[in-house]
């Protein structure tokens, strides 16, 4: 019997404890829309989270969930995936959770390439602890813990993931439900690790943080949308493009008749070399148009599959075995005794 599940069937029914206007609501909506679109059975989904506003997410989906400890969701997730590869495993995390306290787990998750998707809700602030600096807060940011402005250089989640070899990396604003849904679906279809950075504002502690790039009216002027196989065109009038000049991305004016359109840089998310994807991820607003969309989407060896195939290979070579054989392997000797025996104390 197959019943078609609708979006609301993926909601647990608990009222989210997020602040009014929080970007997380949009993510929950788009995510459940994506689940309904791909028709994943609810019991096959495992949502793992750490600590922070974002990490409340699994409470609101009608799936299996594990609300873990700060920064460590990837560790739990990999244990689930290695032993239950048939399950669809998602990590929901935040900028502090994934990149500060959980930075080590994040980089190793990305480099190992298990089929685990990471939704990183990046609001560039610590919300749950009420407004401290996060590892993605821009330099100079004034927060409760940096009243005179931060001197830290921020981390870029997409660049970090690509550097580690992530086979799927995307960025999407929480203001664009359609784009989020599409990217969640693409992430689900991707076999291997995936990072989806969601740009969202914290209405209380970081209001309007992303509006230059996430607000609909600013999008055309300040962002560039990455579409595989299409040239990178941007600008309010969509009249600018990129051209490679040595290692640099050179902005060209498409109104200029001397520009050869065939020289425009065409986005190749499937390129096995990660250099171009990394280069694009380093584009930073306001100096550059801020890239949105899928940076990288390539195939690579899947961690849990490699582990399983090695186990199967060893099992095949060793043949059938059991604990009797295990206990009796190596050097053993027999003792036959008369009535007057003793057993050694342990």
């Amino acid at each position, binding site marked *: 019997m197959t019943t078609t599940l609708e979006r609301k069937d993926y909601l647990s029914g608990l009222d989210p404890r997020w602040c009014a206007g929080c970007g997380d609501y949009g993510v929950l909506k788009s995510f459940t829309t994506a689940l309904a679109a791909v028709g994943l059975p*609810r019991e096959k989904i495992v949502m793992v989270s750490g600590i922070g506003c974002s990490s409340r997410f699994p409470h609101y989906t009608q799936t299996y969930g594990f609300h873990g400890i700060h920064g460590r969701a990837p560790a739990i997730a990999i244990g689930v995936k*290695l032993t239950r590869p048939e399950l669809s495993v998602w990590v929901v995390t935040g900028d502090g959770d994934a990149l500060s306290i959980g930075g080590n787990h994040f980089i190793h998750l990305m480099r190992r390439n298990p089929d685990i998707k990471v939704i990183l809700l990046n609001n560039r602030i610590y919300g749950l602890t009420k407004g401290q600096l996060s590892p993605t807060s821009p330099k100079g940011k004034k927060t409760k813990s940096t009243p005179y402005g931060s001197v830290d250089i921020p981390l870029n989640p997409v660049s970090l993931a690509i550097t580690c070899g992530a086979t799927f990396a995307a960025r999407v604003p929480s203001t664009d439900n359609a784009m989020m849904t599409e990217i969640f679906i693409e992430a689900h279809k991707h076999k291997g690790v995936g990072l989806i950075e969601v740009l969202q504002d914290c209405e209380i502690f970081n209001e309007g943080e992303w509006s230059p790039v996430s607000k609909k009216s600013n999008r055309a002027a300040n962002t560039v949308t990455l579409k595989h196989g299409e040239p990178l065109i941007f600008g309010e009038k969509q009249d600018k493009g990129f051209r490679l000049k040595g290692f640099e991305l050179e902005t060209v004016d498409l109104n200029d008749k001397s520009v050869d359109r065939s020289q425009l840089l065409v986005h190749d998310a499937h390129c096995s070399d990660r250099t171009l994807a990394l280069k694009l991820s380093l584009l930073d607003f306001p100096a550059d148009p801020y890239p949105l969309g899928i940076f990288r989407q390539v195939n690579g060896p899947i961690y849990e599959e490699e582990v399983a195939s090695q186990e199967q290979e060893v099992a095949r070579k060793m043949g059938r075995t059991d604990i009797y054989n295990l206990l009796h392997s190596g050097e053993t000797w027999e003792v036959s005794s008369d009535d007057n025996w003793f057993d050694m104390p342990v």
Partner: protein
Amino acid sequence: MCASENTQDFKTEPSVSGNGMKGYPKELDITTIRFAGDSGDGIQVLGTRFANASAIFGEDVMTLAEYPAEIRAPAGTVAGVSGFQVNVGPQDVYTAGDLVDVLVAMNPAALKSNLPLVRQGGIIIANEDSFIDKNLEKAGYSENPLENDELAAFRVFSVRISHFTSTALEKLGLPRVQVERSKNFFALGLVCWLFNLPLQNSLDWIKQSFSKSEEVVKANSEALVAGHNYGESTELFSSSYIIKKPERQRKAGTYRYLNGNSALSMGLIVAADLAGLRLFLGSYPITPASDILHELSRHKEFPVTTFQAEDEIAAVGAAIGASFGGSLGVTTTSGPGMALKTEFINLAVAAELPLIIINVQRGGPSTGLPTKMEQGDLYQALWARHGESPAVVLAARSPRDCFKTAIEAAQIAIKYMTPVIILSDGYIANGSEPWRIPELNELPHMPARFLTDAEGFQPYKRDPVTLARPWVRPGTPGMEHIIGGLEKRDVTGEVDLTPENHELMVSLRAEKIERVRNDIPPLKIEGDQNAELLIIGWGSSFGAITRAVMNQNAVGHPVASIHLRHLNPFPKDLGKILKRFPRRVVVENNMGQLWTKLRAEYLLEMERLNKVKGTPFKISEIEEMIEKTLGVNS
């Protein structure tokens, strides 16, 4: 004077007989042999092979491995000395021995650092070739001790081990490095001759272990035989030795020789198999626990997944994830790693998932004494977690007990849905002894059960007997639920931070661990049942305490002992037993950690004997304490 296990006096033996003809081997009771040399000399292999040969020959054996914290400390220095001690006897060998009867010293540094361990009149076999100026100087000798009277109190045999090894291997035309590497097998052959041990199993082992290179097999085999022949033909030794036959035979069965880390590894595989679960080990390399990771990584023919994580934290986190997924999650570590895992263990307490955490203890605090044993992590196992966070704590007491402890830990973890901490230590981990392999019908019936009936399912609805919550595998339709570290509402498992619920949940988690007592077998009192003095121990001091009590009972001193394998919760009958004895002494390789807990729980006066030197208790140290406490002399 206190008796210990070994009391040989090698000074009293007959003098050299001529013509290479030797009389019957001299019979010995329990005897301690120590091999020592540079950490690159293959001492651990030499010692292990000797112990194996003895065990297969039917002797009771216990070993102690000691190696430097550095991979290759400066060659020839005292810091770089590696040691391996083997205690052999007909029966009742419970420790690796107090004083050394026979020391095999491969270089001056080995002699220097191990001489204080050798009994007066004991035998020293020295590799004469390495007693050259350069090495003597490195070891801090101004004169060659083999040539002056410094060793007059011992029977010294200088053997040109390097020279004879290269002579024996000359015809093979091997590079010098390979010849040099074979000298430990020459020494093994010589000592096997000295103790009348057959060479065959060592030859078989060489063949198997070095199968990649025929040349190495040949070199090591020939060196082994040459060492044996040297003992046979030289007039150096007046007599060889043989360990007495046991008065009683061992229980019939198949035996093997194993160390604590292997026993834990096998126990875990067997436990998972008996439970019908996949075994998942999340681990991060750390001395002296890494061998469990190595061993389990080799056994992919079973449903065993090993994961070398990016750190100690991820290692336990992945194990918890695996348990959530329906596998038997295990993590292995030592003290510093245990500290890092603490928050995750707390999550397992709150999430109420089965989890086994193995701490192979070493000396602390901080990096401490990485290669030395200690029992300093009991407080940490019991109380390091924030909040009211009870977990089960078990302690293995010997290498072979590690097997049983691993299975018991799995039984409790699964039945009560709780983390179980196993405390082992560096002595048990690397110490070896013979073990009767259990028959399959001696193993417990312990299949794990998952709840699959969605009807009336509630994630925190507890079993009325064990108070365990149900274990549901993700993927089971209609039973989707979330678990985690936030306080849960009783029964339903929703987040609930209200005062009454929190207090209820704290007490339910505590009561669940209390109920584990129902599964703990009664304690066994060793020795004089009506003694005046009761010794209480846990962990690796079992052998020394048991033997000390045996020796003291033999001379009529009223002493008994109990050895705790369950440190949280305590066995039900512990309080009654403690009250039965007028005086109690808690013996520990720490400053009194079990002592603290016993006094707190039973409000009884207790004395203590503590040692924190990175080495296990000697039998004699415990006997001295017994005599002092009882005010008697032997």
